[in-house]
């Protein structure tokens, strides 16, 4: 048995969450920049703010919603807790507390990423460079993930790290999905131009995976179901939820942690909601409501984990 200090379990959980969050914010910016470029109506950066319910916080700091400022807000603004720079910083500060529990390689990766983020200026955020920068950030996060996979001890700590990662990834997939459907407009029964959906699929590295399932079509409903339920697709919500369940079971069976009703109840509620689904006829509004609910259930699992494992009683 590990004698894992409860506070450190929390630190590790949040490393998993924040690195995943940084990666997904990069995905969202990338996808929105592409939409903006291809849109006839002109760029719409308001939706990114809506997605994270950040409009008020943003307007407290910037006069108007425009590309340069929204990008700065989400990439380098350390006053914005959901910026990439903040997520990486927070992941690193969590890692600082548990440097003795993670591998030297993991710490080094986070350090390098943090140092890189800290040196970025507005000049690095020009829109014509944004896609490249987002790729770099995604790759940095993926490298971290790979390093963790290859070097992090498989004990309780691994379970907490993975649970953080999967919870965050599931949450972010719901947000990316929400943004794309909102963008596509309310009337998505009619096939939209393929470009729009391709951008979405590529942004989650799901284009080819989706194609292999649906060689010809880009039906919005199929895409939504794919991102929500395809258990072979690593970013699908159902897969993340399943993995979360596996780790919880491992905590109990492999590492002797006590089983806790509150976590299990929250997990079951999440699974039930996911299984119930958004209904057979997907409208943007219905999907939005469904995704909102999923986000709440995911947050409940996170809180239950904290109450159970991170308090040390």
């Amino acid at each position: 048995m590990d004698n894992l200090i409860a506070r450190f379990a929390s630190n590790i959980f949040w490393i998993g969450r924040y690195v995943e969050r940084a990666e997904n914010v990069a995905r969202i910016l990338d996808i929105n920049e592409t939409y903006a470029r291809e849109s006839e109506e002109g760029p719409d950066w308001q939706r990114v703010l809506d997605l994270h319910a950040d409009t008020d916080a943003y307007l407290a700091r910037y006069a108007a919603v425009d590309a340069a400022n929204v990008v700065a807000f989400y990439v380098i603004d350390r006053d914005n807790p959901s910026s990439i720079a903040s997520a990486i910083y927070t992941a690193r500060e969590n890692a600082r507390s548990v440097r003795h529990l993670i591998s030297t390689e993991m710490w080094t990766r986070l350090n390098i990423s943090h140092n890189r983020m800290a040196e970025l200026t507005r000049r690095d955020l020009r829109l014509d460079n944004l896609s490249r920068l987002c790729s770099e950030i995604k790759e940095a996060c993926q490298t971290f993930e790979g390093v963790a996979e290859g070097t992090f001890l498989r004990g309780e700590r691994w379970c907490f790290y993975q649970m953080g990662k999967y919870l965050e990834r599931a949450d972010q997939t719901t947000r990316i999905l929400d943004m794309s459907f909102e963008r596509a407009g309310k009337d998505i029964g009619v096939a939209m131009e393929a470009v729009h959906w391709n951008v979405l699929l590529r942004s989650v590295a799901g284009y080819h995976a989706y194609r292999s399932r649906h060689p010809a079509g880009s039906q919005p409903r199929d895409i939504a179901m794919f991102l929500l339920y395809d258990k072979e697709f690593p970013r699908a919500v159902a897969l993340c939820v399943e993995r979360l369940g596996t780790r919880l079971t491992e905590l109990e069976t492999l590492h002797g942690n006590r089983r806790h009703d509150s976590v299990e109840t929250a997990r079951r509620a999440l699974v039930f909601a996911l299984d119930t689904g958004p209904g057979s006829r997907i409208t943007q509004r219905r999907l939005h409501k469904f995704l909102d609910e999923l986000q709440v259930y995911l947050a409940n699992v996170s809180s239950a984990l904290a109450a159970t494992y991170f308090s040390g009683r």
Partner: protein
Amino acid sequence: MSNHSAVTGYEPGEFFCEIFGRAGGRRLGHTRRIRDRLAQLDIAQLRARARGAERELYNLGITFTVYTDREAIDRILPFDVIPRVLSSKDWEIIESGVKQRVAALNSFLFDIYHGEKILKDGVVPRELVLGNANYRPEMCGFDPPQGTYVHICGIDIVRDEKGKFLVLEDNARTPSGVSYVIENRHLMMRAFPDLAEGMRIADVDDYGRQLAGALSAVAPTGVGSPNVVLMSPGAYNSAYFEHVFLAREMGVPLVEGQDLVVENHKVFMRTTHGLAPVHVIYRRINDDFLDPKIFRPESTLGVAGLFEAYLKGNVTLANAIGTGVADDKAVYAYMPRIIKYYLDQDPILSNVPTNICRETAGLQKTLDHLGELVTKPVGEAGGYGVVVGPSASKRELGELRAKLIADPNNYISQPVINLSVCPTLVGRAVEPRHVDLRPFAVTGDSTWVLPGGLTRVALRRGSLVVNSSQGGGSKDTWVVG
């Protein structure tokens, strides 16, 4: 390649050089290989290695941390790529001298918290001990396991112009810096493996295992496989890197006060499985902050009830409480007599000759040579109130004289020591810079000394101050045999 080697024109002057030896004296045999290799490098090559090492330090996060209200700024402790090299003969002296000193410190602490024999015999003045701010009357009569008070000791040693080792200070509370010893070696072997090729350098990697072994050896009696933890003030402490490092080298949990709880005079840690027992605490927190019930009530770093659990023998603290009285500057002056008293041996490592101003002869000598001596108030820490005679103004010396006469008990004085130097890369040249040495000793049921120790180097030309806060850096320290 240029014709100039990195050490062309290097001139240590009147100081003892750790690589090139005494001015006008014989070259040091044990540094021949490294001298040859340095002579083959040009300055650009040396600089390239240094840059590589520095980048590595930064990426590895081997840093001490400065906090602003907004964020953590990590600074690296400057690292110099030219190692300091000790012969195995030098090392034998240091190692045996350190062991002797640690034994004397532990005997002294046991005595002053039990029979006070040394005070009754008048070897050390009673009020020097009992009136000391770091003396803990609560410890009287308490028997720490194995009689060990100072489990981890760092002894600051300098070398004079003749190459003789002198003890400058004992650190018997929570000495820091050992992580740099080990990390510097790793760094050196990555950045500059060819410099060490073919040399037998004593290994430093065993520290964690030795420390864990020593701490297990002092666990409360009857505990089969003790749970050892390292207790840190937290991530905001400037030495947090070292706390992390040591917890990891030992493979033990790193905890803060908030992770511990005392129930029925027993200590537990909060884990993901609930409460788990704790038997030995390597604490990197000062006595004052350990237990708000006994010491500073406002401390949030400690654990309420810890001291009582300790006195009941349910948990061992390393170092013990109340060791600060032994590394006090005034007590330091008595160390040669303390060694003689308990061990009936002459000190293997000499003190810097010290005038004890509470003694008439010492005071007279100090007053007669005020302008040549370093005068130190004994009660202060961190170099506060130290007057360096040769660089003090007339007015400062006058003020000091008045203070000495008014309160001689509060002062000691020492000659200025010409610290040894070591070739050091400074900008575009290799120049002599002053160094000291802090070996680390670990004591459970016996004492083990980590080969080498931390070499700190004063990077400013002519400076004798090696502290990291005042422009100091560090070097890898090799014991070659």
